């Protein structure tokens, strides 16, 4: 296997990691909203920021 293959495998791993991370954030946000529906707006904002940061890492890995 050459370097490119390993790079592709690495990218795949990072995407899996980013997916798991965003999934965890989304799930936790769902739990939090179910517990405190009145705080939905605040939770959503925090959720989107955290998801965007992880997404940035994922894209950086894909495009690097």
């Amino acid at each position, binding site marked *: 296997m050459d370097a490119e293959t390993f790079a592709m495998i690495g990218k795949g791993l990072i995407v899996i990691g980013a997916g798991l991370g965003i999934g965890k954030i989304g799930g936790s946000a769902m739990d939090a909203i179910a517990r405190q529906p009145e705080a939905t*707006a605040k939770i959503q*904002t925090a959720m*989107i*920021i955290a998801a*965007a*940061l992880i*997404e*940035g890492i994922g*894209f*950086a890995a*894909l*495009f690097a």
Partner: protein
Amino acid sequence: MMKAKLNIIATLLVLFSTTAFALEHPDDHSHDHGEGQTMDLKTEIKQTIKHHLKDAHYFELYHGLAMPLPVIIWDNGIHLFMSSSFDHGHALASSNGNYYNLDHGKIYKTDSEGHVLENQSIIDFSITKNVLVIILMCAFLLISFSKLARSYKKGPIPTGFGRILEPLVLFVRDDIAIPNIGEKHYKKYMSYLLTVFFFIWFLNLSGMMPLGINVTGSIVVTFSLALITYFITQFTANKNYWGHIFWMPGVPVPMKIILLPIELLGTIIKPFSLMIRLYANITAGHVVLMSLIGLIYAAQHWLANGAFFGLTLFLGVIELLVAFLQAYIFTMLTALYFGSAVEEHDDH
């Protein structure tokens, strides 16, 4: 009056949708790039996508019908001519005794026979299709928002297109600026936040329309936006911000020394991630969408065609959501960085 307007809009919509269909029809491109030899469908789809993502010196309305755009080159003086003199890369353009060649969207300086002159660099200020769309979008934003502003002189309720814009302006103020920057400082950043939000959102949406140009999916545009955010953050920061970068309060001295380079790097990484996020999201969206459109042509069975059509429609709607989400996230994170720059630390 109203009916006539509607008729015009409907006609335009029909016209544009047919041209877009022809644009995205890969079969039409067979004689474009291949130079005589016919390509298989896969290569054609790939080249159509590549062609779509790249900036160009033409504004293609329809296959074979391209609007030439002005070329502006700085080469010891300004050279100005229309890109039609390149004849899509088949001819040399001459201007004031210099010769230029257009090769794969890039302009090279050549001699009169067409050989590229090495180490003769020129600066290309051309109005490419991205620049054209940006200029049009700026004009549109300027007109619609100054109209909205003027309508408040007559009464508290805006008229026309302003009725759509007013809740969005309030959304940026109440849900993005005030929670992240704070009641005290948010006003001086509102103009930039509103500009960046509507600029990105409308450009994303225009990229989803037929004839749409992939402007926010070009890294130069997102780089410029991130650079402006970076400069505003650094130049409006107060002493607390710099204190937290150079000499983090409340931690032991060895830790302060370790944190200093990390924090300095962080100031650059933040706008860098802004740039990459917008660029990658929009580019990825366009690639996926166009690949699915290509799959409709590549699929041989009518059932598969229908399935891919449904998938394209679904992803198109998702992309409309992403268009808003990316504008929101860019504005939100920009507001967050501004907020960290002006934060007061009276509590410790």
